């Protein structure tokens, strides 16, 4: 177990999250992908903290709090979306079309 291994795992999780973010239509699924990406970033922080020192763990705590806030707001937005379009597919909301 080295820093390189941990960072490779983190990169993989992040890219899987990116893939989900880009391709899933369901709003909840997009939120799940975002969670994966946040988790990957946290893992990178913790790995650096372990192998190189520094306040990485504190950052993870803050990132966790931000994630929780993001989930709360995200789900509220999903509810709004559902109420407005009777569906949670993200591409239903396309009022911003120019």
């Amino acid at each position, binding site marked *: 177990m080295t820093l390189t291994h941990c960072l490779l*795992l983190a990169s993989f999780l992040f890219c899987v999250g990116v893939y989900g973010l880009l391709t899933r239509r369901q709003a909840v699924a997009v939120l799940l992908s975002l969670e994966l990406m946040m988790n990957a970033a946290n893992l990178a922080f913790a790995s650096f903290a372990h192998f190189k020192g520094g306040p990485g763990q504190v950052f993870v705590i803050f990132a966790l709090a931000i994630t929780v806030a993001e989930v709360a707001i995200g789900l509220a937005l999903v509810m709004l979306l559902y109420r407005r379009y009777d569906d949670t597919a993200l591409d239903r909301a396309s009022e911003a079309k120019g």
Partner: protein
Amino acid sequence: MNALFVLAALVTAFAAVLVVAGKNLVRAVMALALALLGTAVVYALLDASFLAGVQVLTYVGGVVTLMIFGVMVTRRHEGANAPAERVHGFRGLVIAAGLFALLAWAVMESDLDRGAPPIFAPETTRSLARSLLDEHLIAFEVVSLLLLAAILGAVVLARRRDGRDAGSELLAAATREAVESQTQGEPVEAAGSARGGAAR
């Protein structure tokens, strides 16, 4: 220790793929919970026992529950007869793979494992608490403000004008589903979808 890390990493990676690959949202949430648990194990291996605990408590306990709730409240069109699940899947795959290749290359090139193994004292829960409430006190307070704002924002966003809350909304959605399937005169399919819903 290495074997445990490899196992945890494999489980985490596999579960992550399940999160984005499957069609069924409830299953995806469960896969996410597994991936987060795997990460928690990695945290524990990284001498971050407090983080591992918090990860299990807030993520697996809180976030996943919230997600399940979100799926259930909005589940009407989820599942078997949902429209096409993906948008430009190939482009997304290319971009994600490219990003991973780039990141992996950067990580490998940086030669991060050079030098002596860590000699500094690992972070304990006590030292973590000290740095959180002393050195990073202001950031800590700002985060509490952020959480307050998020709570208020979520309440304002999710509140209905007619004062019904999410719970009654869930009930209403279920009732509507039942009524619709009955009025359409398709008892077999209705029973099937109900069973499918229960299974989900």
